[in-house]
């Protein structure tokens, strides 16, 4: 009997771990896109997720929008925030050096957080799930239909991004900017527009993650920093710039966290992801899936 419950527990933790892990992976994708083009780590990445969730809740709650419509509106609005951030702040500060850029993206994240608090207050907001219906029972573990939406949306995002960077001229142009911005300009790629595009894209993806997770875990103004950190953990663990790696690493982080919460201590579940981040940074900063060869090529 105990064995049965153990198996059920494990399955339940796996499901919830993967659900949240996928969200980390999407945050990581956002880091990757901006990093791919600019080699900037955008410390405000987590705030995009928070904004996505809260905007959607706002559109549903205040305007009575249907949830699917609210999803797109929230993604669009957050993308605009990303645009403004790049166009009016980052672009002016590109030449100020790494230290200043770090501080500037941190400052933006604080300001986004502060604005969200003023606008929406400190209470958590919720969203109706994307589709109705009770949880699906698998071997005694409950799977929320919303979790399926989360998997679906993130799978779609990864697929579209991969196609974009592998097939589209603009995607490749963005990679070219990351590889060698000078040479990119010399072949006629407008580097600035590519940078702008990267901020818009990563804000949109962050927002999408925020909207899909809110029906399960709610959303409040100060969730951004932790989501951002864990997403960064996934990005580093998976190898900065690697989309597939980010997905796997996000899942690993989510699982580690979920099992820690289940078996060790729920208070330390946030620390688990961070410890993994530190271990990754210390021992394998190129990530599990990062290619050492590509890094070397780049340096040369």
């Amino acid at each position, binding site marked *: 009997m105990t064995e049965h419950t153990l198996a059920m527990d494990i399955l339940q933790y796996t499901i919830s771990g993967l659900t949240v892990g996928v969200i980390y992976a999407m945050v990581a994708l956002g880091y990757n896109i901006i990093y791919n083009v600019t080699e900037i780590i955008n410390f405000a990445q987590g705030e995009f997720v928070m904004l996505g969730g809260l905007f959607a809740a706002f559109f549903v709650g205040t305007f009575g929008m249907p949830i699917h419509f609210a999803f797109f509106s929230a993604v669009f609005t957050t993308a605009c925030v990303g645009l403004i951030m790049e166009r009016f702040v980052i672009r002016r500060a590109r030449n100020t050096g790494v230290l200043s850029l770090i501080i500037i993206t941190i400052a933006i994240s604080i300001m986004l957080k502060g604005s969200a608090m003023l606008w929406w207050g400190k209470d958590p907001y919720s969203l109706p799930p994307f589709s109705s219906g009770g949880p699906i029972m698998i071997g005694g573990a409950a799977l929320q239909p919303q979790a399926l939406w989360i998997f679906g949306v993130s799978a779609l995002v990864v697929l579209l991004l991969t196609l974009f960077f592998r097939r589209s*001229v603009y995607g*490749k*142009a963005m*990679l*070219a900017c*990351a*590889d*060698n911005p*000078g*040479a*990119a*300009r*010399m*072949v*006629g*790629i*407008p*580097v600035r527009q590519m940078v702008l595009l990267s901020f818009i894209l990563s804000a949109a993806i962050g927002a999408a993650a925020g909207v899909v997770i809110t029906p399960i875990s709610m959303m409040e103004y100060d969730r951004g920093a932790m989501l951002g950190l864990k997403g960064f953990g996934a990005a580093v663990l998976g190898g900065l710039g690697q989309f597939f790696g980010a997905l796997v690493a996000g899942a690993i982080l989510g699982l580690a966290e979920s099992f820690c919460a289940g078996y060790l201590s729920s208070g330390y579940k946030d620390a688990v992801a961070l410890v993994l981040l530190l271990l990754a940074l210390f021992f394998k900063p190129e990530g599990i899936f990062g290619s050492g*060869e*590509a890094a070397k*090529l*780049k340096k*040369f």
Partner: protein
Amino acid sequence: MLKVKSVHTYYGNIHALKGVSLHVRPGETVALIGANGAGKSTIVNTICGQIKPLKGRIEFQGQPIEGLAPEEIVRRGIALVPEGRQIFATLTVESNLEMGGFVHRNNHRQVREDMTRMYDRFPILRQRSRQLAGTLSGGEQQMLAISRALMSRPQLLVLDEPSMGLAPLIVREIFSIIEELRREGRTILLIEQNARAALQIADRGYVLETGKVVLQGEGNTLLEHREVQRAYLGKGAGQIVDA
């Protein structure tokens, strides 16, 4: 086609170009030679928009282009094969070519055709089209850099030190490629430290010394000129040429 009129450029706090004037006529191959630090690369960077000149004018097909962004200059028809090749090392060979045709991205067919043309010209690139460009050998990277520049269908091709760091055999190959491009009627500005090879295939040449043009003339005439030998090799080594 290209006119550079008494351009002054500062590179940091170094006065790198002190009133350089030169021109390139359509269909011409013009060589720019000079010792290291003479300002050759600064001229290239100034023409291609990487550095803004302090004074002077640069005209391309009658239009002033000084101060324009590099991507705009590419669109106007100047393509650069940069010093040290500067290929996109982490992209595949094919993507590199595609990026070279970025300004024609809306004309998908043309880009495809041009790519085929490049592969026909350099079959080795076709073989390696799926490889990361950084894994190519130096000579192959140079071919890729040249092809990438040609992909934008430039009116003027600027080659900055194409022989740098390459084995003699490969250098010969690169120069025969340049010779071929010249015969096709392309307009070429060739920046080289390999003075003899450059002047041999050039219609005209300029010799640059400490940021100034000290000599100019027909390629063959310059080759014979003692000053060239001095400017390039130094007087002590001038004997090498005599030998």
